[in-house]
């Protein structure tokens, strides 16, 4: 069997998938692999479909008992993960993470073919994809996965796939490439529709090529049908969702007066975590990339396609703060910067290799050696990252408590959660819950110590707040209204249950006082295991 350079892609995909999945892991016993709020709600979105057998509306516990609250999360990734969980019995927090990591790895495979077509070099493509597996520190290459932008990881796969089809169609002109591009747009619409914006110029280029290439009306209709049919139909079907649900969430995406302080490296979007920027990359990436760009610019006729795509991408990720009020989701696309930078580095390395008289096979060996050395160098920071992510928001003991809550507490009950509420993990109770922030708890403990009495008012964050990104409910056919977010001030008497975690001795003492006080107010202990205590109102228990 003839060896083809593209076969290198297969072990690279395996290595990449293994590394990505190994970072947080695929635990079968409890959702210990979820490290941030966003992935909690991604996993819950899968469970919601399994629990309710539908996607359109949120379960009642998400929207304060309302059963017609519109689901904001686009359905495709969650539905596919729900299918896998349904038929394999594997937990949702693993099936969705599995798909996310798989598609992140597949995206690298697609980059091989884009680079091979774009630069007409299997060597550049081979080195580029090897370095994409583990090229740099976590901020540069792993941003989307460790931050938890899971639906965007899958959407980015389809963005890259769309670029593949665009590059291929512009060279080959096959109609099936239009159909696949159409499928990519469909997938993006129902995975993370904001990512449609940057590919629209490429779609327009494809449409222009279709127009130029086709001469008869029949051919034109057939080709435009291939390019746009499914995506147009889906767009029309989802138009109410776009206007009233996603539109409500995306007011910030409309063009408007730009922010008075547009910044390239803004941290406010991500709660202090800096979006990936050019300065994340080391000098040995930036300098060869710059050299590549300059060299391509000099030969711009030969590289006009690549330069066009790179320019469009850089414009989206760095210039849009000057156009849109809040280009939050567009700036997240900086996570794809390695996909642009590493092929440019590979181009320089292979160009240097070409100056040496070597047999083609030896050039391949050299390229693979360079790639393996880079992988080896990247493994140390990967291991550090792995141990850094070892902590769990939901331990096995906590998961047992949450499972007890799901099975034993009525669905319309309200729970006050005093401790252990970090990163929105109480979503896995699947109940209406008021989460007390640590600062609020400290403030109340100080009040208790001083006054020896239970504070009346508590400020809570209502469970699944990040899921209720918009507050839209269906009031009739094609008719939508807003539903309110509950008042954040609540009293313990508003809750049927109170959840406490004895995280250390001091907290255990405070909780013991809470339990004693609540007993005198008609509560009783209903769960007490592994340092987790739940008290319930006697008529509710």
């Amino acid at each position, binding site marked *: 069997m003839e060896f083809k350079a593209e076969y290198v892609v297969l072990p690279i995909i395996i290595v990449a998938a293994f590394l990505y999945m190994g970072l947080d892991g695929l635990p079968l016993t409890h959702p210990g692999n979820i490290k941030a709020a966003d992935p909690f709600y991604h996993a819950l979105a899968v469970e919601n479909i399994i629990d309710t057998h539908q996607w359109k509306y949120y379960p009642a516990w998400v929207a304060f008992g309302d059963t017609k609250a519109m689901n904001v999360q686009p359905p495709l990734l969650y539905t596919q993960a729900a299918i896998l969980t349904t038929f394999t019995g594997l937990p949702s927090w693993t099936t969705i993470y599995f798909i996310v990591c798989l598609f992140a790895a597949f995206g690298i495979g697609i980059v091989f073919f884009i680079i091979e077509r774009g630069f007409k070099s299997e060597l550049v493509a081979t080195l580029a994809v090897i370095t994409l597996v583990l090229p740099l520190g976590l901020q540069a290459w792993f941003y989307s996965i460790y931050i938890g932008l899971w639906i965007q990881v*899958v959407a980015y796969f389809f963005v890259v796939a769309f670029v593949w089809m665009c590059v291929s169609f512009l060279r080959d002109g096959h109609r099936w490439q239009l159909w696949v591009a159409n499928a990519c747009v469909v997938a993006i619409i129902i995975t993370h529709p904001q990512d449609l914006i940057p590919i629209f110029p490429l779609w327009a280029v494809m449409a222009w090529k279709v127009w130029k290439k086709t001469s008869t009306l029949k051919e034109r209709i057939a080709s435009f049908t291939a390019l746009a049919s499914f995506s147009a139909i889906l767009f029309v079907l989802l138009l109410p969702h776009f206007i009233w649900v996603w539109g409500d969430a995306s007011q910030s995406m409309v063009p408007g007066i730009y922010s008075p302080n547009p910044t390239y490296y803004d941290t406010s979007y991500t709660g202090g975590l800096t979006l990936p920027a050019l300065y994340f990359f080391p000098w040995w990436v930036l300098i060869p990339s710059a050299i590549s760009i300059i060299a391509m610019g000099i030969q711009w006729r030969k590289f006009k396609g690549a330069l066009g795509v790179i320019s469009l991408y850089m414009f989206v990720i760095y210039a849009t703060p000057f156009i849109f009020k809040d280009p939050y989701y567009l700036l997240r696309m900086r996570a794809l910067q390695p996909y642009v930078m590493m092929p440019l580095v590979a181009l320089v390395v292979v160009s240097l290799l070409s100056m040496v008289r070597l047999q083609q096979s030896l050039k391949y060996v050299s390229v693979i050696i360079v790639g393996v050395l880079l992988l080896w160098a990247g493994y140390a920071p990967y291991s550090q990252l792995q141990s850094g992510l070892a902590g769990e928001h939901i331990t096995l003991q906590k998961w047992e408590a949450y499972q007890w809550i799901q099975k034993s507490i009525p669905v319309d009950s309200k729970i006050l959660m005093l401790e252990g509420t970090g990163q929105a993990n109480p979503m896995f109770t699947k109940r209406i819950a008021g989460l007390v922030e640590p600062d609020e708890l400290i403030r109340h403990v100080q009040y208790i110590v001083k006054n020896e009495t239970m504070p009346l008012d508590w400020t809570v964050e209502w469970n699944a707040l990040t899921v209720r990104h918009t507050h839209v409910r269906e009031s009739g056919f094609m008719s939508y209204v807003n539903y309110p977010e509950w008042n954040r001030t609540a009293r313990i008497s508003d809750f049927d249950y109170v959840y406490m975690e004895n995280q250390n001795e001091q907290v255990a003492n405070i909780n013991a006082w809470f339990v004693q006080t609540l007993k005198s107010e008609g509560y009783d202990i209903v769960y007490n295991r592994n340092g987790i205590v739940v008290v319930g109102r006697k008529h509710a228990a």
Partner: protein
Amino acid sequence: MLRELKMAGTWFAISLGFMLLLSIAYKSPYAIVAITLGYAAFILLPGYVWAYPLKQTFVQTFLLANIIGFAWGAAYVPLDIFLRVPLNPVTFIVVTMASVCLGLYINRGTYFGRQHHPTLQQSTPEKETPVNPS
């Protein structure tokens, strides 16, 4: 006559093996096999049926199958939003089978007819005059 179908089946089987390797991170034999078979049945197979006739190389066909198979999940959107068909195991199986059957029907010329995949032409001597792939 069924050589294309057999070749597609061979490629699919190789892809299955590849998926097994990709699932090793699950670290549990049951989980590895289950996720492989589940993914292959509901995403890879419906994608493969449509991707194989595109006459690309094995790796490209595998990637295309994942693109198309995953995107097929769009079928659940109108079923859920407009027809309120419950998204339960029956629906998942029916939609997947519909995709596979439709793919086999639309591409029957490839699977059951005389249009041959380039790989098949290179590896197997033809007894009859092959149809040149476009």
